[in-house]
């Protein structure tokens, strides 16, 4: 394929993905908006007013970056895992397999589709947060880079999950039993400096902690970890996960007999 043809194939996949999640917006865009609004009301307004300051900021301001990140992570992951697995399930993945689209374009197309939904949700949640608090931006490049890379990382993760999944149950195991606990324990609602030393140490092996804190640093200027270390980690994981996903595609794991 010529570079122009590859670009056309790439944009076709991305447009198809965006068309898919916007067509079913009550399932894809509305739920995180409702959930995050509830978080803002309950944790931020009702409970947060009794908690007081955290990291030098009122509790609502403190949790907003974490909640935006949580929405971005879950939506980026969910979009790719559900879309790609549905294609496997309906066998419409064969449309791509018989075509000359290179594997890296397939991966890039799905990841960008996942990022479109993740970042779209992030934008919606950010707008909603403005109704509850006044957002300041401490370091805009850090905010943008962190949210883009995190979204990409979890989109690739969703792709690997979809490749490995053989039934619908398999696509909810990782979000339920891995992503949600890691996100809740990743410093969304608290600063790990509140934890005893042992649990602070345990928290440091949670990769989501780094992403939430890098993003929080970009917005508030405070972080439990070095944000640049966090960015480096995300890049390493993106490279690693992409290599695994491409290897799976080349071998036809779960998609070719």
């Amino acid at each position, binding site marked *: *394929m010529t570079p122009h043809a590859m670009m*056309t194939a790439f944009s076709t*996949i991305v*447009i*198809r993905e965006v068309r898919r999640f916007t*067509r079913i917006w009550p399932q894809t865009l509305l739920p995180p908006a409702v959930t995050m609004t509830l978080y803002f009301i309950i944790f931020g307004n009702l409970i947060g007013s009794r908690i007081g300051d955290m990291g030098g900021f009122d509790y609502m301001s403190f949790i907003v970056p974490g909640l935006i990140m949580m929405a971005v992570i879950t939506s980026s992951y969910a979009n790719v895992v559900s879309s790609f697995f549905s294609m496997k399930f309906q066998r*419409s993945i064969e449309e791509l*397999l*018989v075509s*000359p689209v290179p594997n890296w374009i397939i991966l890039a197309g799905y990841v960008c589709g996942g990022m479109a939904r993740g970042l779209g949700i992030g934008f919606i949640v950010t707008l909603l947060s403005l109704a509850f608090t006044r957002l300041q931006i401490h370091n805009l490049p850090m905010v943008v880079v962190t949210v883009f890379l995190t979204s990409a990382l979890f989109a690739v993760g969703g792709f690997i999950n979809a490749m490995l999944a053989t039934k619908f149950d398999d696509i909810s195991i990782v979000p339920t039993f891995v992503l949600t606990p890691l996100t809740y324990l990743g410093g969304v609602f608290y600063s790990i400096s509140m934890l005893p030393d042992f649990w602070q140490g345990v928290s440091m092996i949670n990769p989501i902690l780094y992403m939430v804190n890098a993003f929080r640093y970009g917005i508030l200027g405070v972080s439990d970890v070095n944000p640049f270390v966090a960015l480096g980690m995300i890049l390493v994981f993106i490279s690693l996960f992409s290599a695994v996903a491409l290897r799976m595609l080349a071998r036809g794991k779960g998609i070719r007999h």
Partner: protein
Amino acid sequence: MTNALEIEGLTKTYGDGFQALKGIDMNVRQGDFFALLGPNGAGKSTTLGIVSSLVNKSAGKVRVFGCDIDTHLSDAKLNLGVVPQEFNFNQFEKVFDIVTTQAGYYGIPLKQAKVSAEKYLRKLGLWDKKDTPARMLSGGMKRRLMIARALVHEPKLLILDEPTAGVDIELRRSMWTFLEEMNREGTTIILTTHYLEEAEALCRNIAIIDHGRILRHTSKRDLLQQLHVETFVLDTESTLTEAPALADFPCRLDDEGALEVDVQKGQGLNKVFVELDALGIKVVSMRTKANRLEELFIRMVEENAAGKGAAGAQGGAA
């Protein structure tokens, strides 16, 4: 002239150890209308699956218009359009989107894809359904949608795996006409089908595959010349109670009282009528009992099975 498809020593062993293909060789000439026939589980879909990159081969070579799928897969795919046996499109997408998206996967810009999609949707009688979600289409429409999708990038080789399965006779005939037109315009076509009447009507060359081996790979004409006996069914004016004794033709009554007559290759049909006329039996209509290709096909597969049985028995005795 380059062959449209060349297969050499193709083998496929699935993960559970089942050997679906045991080293097949097959060539399809450019411009041919070719049938790959075989009973269920013979290896037809596996062969076509490997050619279309849906199945990984274990060994062997496959070339599509000279492009080796091991070294020039992308070029091979550009020449290929595939219509699978099972519906494999997103049931929630609209007809037009399915076809234009497929064109996009081949690198065709949207504007051009829309023109090509309209052309084939019109040709296949689906243009008025272009905004209908695929799940709302009838079975026949879904099959035609898969053909339109496979043709949107104008492939030189079109592979159809059971294209008319579950399609009513009228629609089947119109699909035959369409495929013949495509073939006349230069598209090489390979099809698998259970309707041997279809293969006999459309194809010029035929390969018969069974248990992962090619039993015969020849022209339809050569194949049909191997048919030594043909059975004709004669409806008589008066109902017969027993089969008449004809001098040169074995005959019997079928369940509905019609007369079945076996005619050897080279025997004239006129003689049958002469003998029946002499016995005072008037024939009002006549048809062949089975499709000619079907008779050959059944015989070959049965002979192959009998050969395997005998070999198995010998192996067991040893």
